């Protein structure tokens, strides 16, 4: 699904990722942990195609060179990034945005676009499944949403758009236990042999609810340690400083 070799990324000549290797196969869930400033969010941004980074190394998604694929086409090909800080877009209705988004992805796939009725049915079903109040879908996109609502909205988008590769950038930060469970439910109910996840987190807490196949530790722009679920628990006890 995703093959990263010797990935280097810098912004304003400042190197952040310094030769990162990662291989995610279909159906796998990888967690990336690491201290502040280790490059976790940069990795998420680079994968989503954000401007401003100088990127080198191998970055393949389903056999294609991701570096040459524009941002929106990445989304159309099934890459989804749940933002650490979802943006507030004033004046844009959440439902209308979601419908436009879904239809542009369906269109790119060559599938039939959904009309308003079919879309509403889908949204209702997915929000019910996650236990999200569908009322906030009639509000402006993320405007005046609480931190938890914004994150839940990201997961709802993920459920609706059904990506192959979902990248969750610290989606668990700042959430209460109930919201955390909703996020976990959204991820767990989406898992299948065709879908992969890259979950970026600070804390082991989320991994109590989402069972990763691999846990990687990112430090100073490189993956310094890889293990299974127990690695996260170990880190929780010892902290990152003991790693070296």
């Amino acid at each position, binding site marked *: 699904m995703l093959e990263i070799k010797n990935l280097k990324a810098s912004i304003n000549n400042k190197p952040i990722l310094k030769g990162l290797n990662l291989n995610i196969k279909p159906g796998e869930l990888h967690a990336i942990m690491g201290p502040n400033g280790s490059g976790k969010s940069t990795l998420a941004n680079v994968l989503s195609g954000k401007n401003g980074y100088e990127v080198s190394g191998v970055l393949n998604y389903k056999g294609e060179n991701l570096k040459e694929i524009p941002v929106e086409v990445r*989304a159309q090909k099934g890459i989804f990034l749940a*933002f650490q800080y979802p943006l507030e877009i*004033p004046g844009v209705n959440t439902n209308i945005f979601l419908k436009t988004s879904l239809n542009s992805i369906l269109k790119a796939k060559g599938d039939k676009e959904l009309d308003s009725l079919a879309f509403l049915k889908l949204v209702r079903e997915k929000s019910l499944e996650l236990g999200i109040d569908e009322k906030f879908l009639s509000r402006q996109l993320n405007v005046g949403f609480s931190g938890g609502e914004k994150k839940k909205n990201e997961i709802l988008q993920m459920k609706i758009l059904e990506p192959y590769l979902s990248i969750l950038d610290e989606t668990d930060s700042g959430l209460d236990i109930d919201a955390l469970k909703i996020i976990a439910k959204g991820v767990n109910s989406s898992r299948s042999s065709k879908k992969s996840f890259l979950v970026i987190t600070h804390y082991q807490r989320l991994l109590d609810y989402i069972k990763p196949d691999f846990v990687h530790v990112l430090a100073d722009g490189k993956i310094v340690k890889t293990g299974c679920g127990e690695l996260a628990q170990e880190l929780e006890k010892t902290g990152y400083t003991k790693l070296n």
Partner: protein
Amino acid sequence: MQNFEINSNQIDKIKKITLEEKNFRFKNLELFNASGFPNNRLEDWKFSDFKNIVYNNFDELDTKKVSSDFNKMDLLKDFEHNYIFLVNGNLHSSNFSYEDKNKIKINTYDKSIDYKISTNPLICLNHALAENGYSLEIEKNYKFKKVLVIYNFFTNDVKNKILNNKNKITIKENSELHVVEYTINETKFINNVYENIILEKNAKFKNLIVQSKKSDGFFYKFIKNKLLFNSESSNLIFSSGLKFNKLDLECDLTEENSRCNILSALFLNKNEHQEIKTLVNHLAPNCKSNQKVKNVLSTECKGVYQGKIYVKDIAQKTDAYQLSKALLLEDSAEFNSKPELEIYADDVKCSHGSSSGNIDEDSLHYLMTRGLNQKDSKNLLIKGFLNDVIDFIKSPSIKKFIESKLDQQINEY
């Protein structure tokens, strides 16, 4: 074009006028000829040098009368409505089939001359030469059932002419009127309009300004609103697509509890120039005014907002709000904003704000990571920016109509 002066025999040609009116017209013509078109040395015109704009765009220009002959009347099908049809500013026909006709008086303009002498050369020109327009009066206790569309249709005969029109709307006690002013024109000409709007006690007036499509016309309109006790006026401006447009709104809140709203959502394309200038006079206590001007500017265009709030010493408990926001899509776009507050009362709430900026790159990226291409993402952000003004339109069919007009403009970019 170098110099522009109007011969006084133009006034001699106006028929059936009293000596008094004739003198009033002569005096105004003299004032206009002495100053010519307003230029940027006048404070009110500092961002829109009209003289320069006219001289750069017209090789010839005259004020001769034009025929109002035409035979094609295309009415809007987007929503049910009454209408007044103006041809080159002349009252051509009207239809109030949804209303009680006894409650409505419609006439050509009544030619009253009880105007103060103005320092604005275009108003002088209007006072000197205007002989067309309409006068609409709504009787007491009557609420319009359907919207009234004022079709402002210009034939190709107006090319290289200056048309001076004068209109008046009076809404009497407890009555309500909702107007959509719809301009249809493609020709290069100048339209100089003076409009008087009087709202009596408890009257309500909503005026929505829009045009059919892009136009090479140069429009200036002065609208004088006089509001009496507990009356409310709302001006909603959606006149995108004009080569030049300046709306000069003056709103006198003369009695308690009167309220005025001035809102605009504009999208300017290449070589378009629009100015909204407002003067809200709080002359009595407990009045409320709300101004929100939103401009999106694409490339090589200019937007201007000059907004002034005046609060008289007796106008305590005034609540006045003013906001101007501009979204600049290219470096070649220019937006000028000049907010002014002049307050002589000590127990008032007056706030104003002004900002201009570019499209937020992070917001754009967010939308694009959801599969929307750059153009669609930009369009969504632009519409989002303008939406809070559009949401002021309560009728779904009219809202849809306005949105489609804005989309035309946005899609051209």
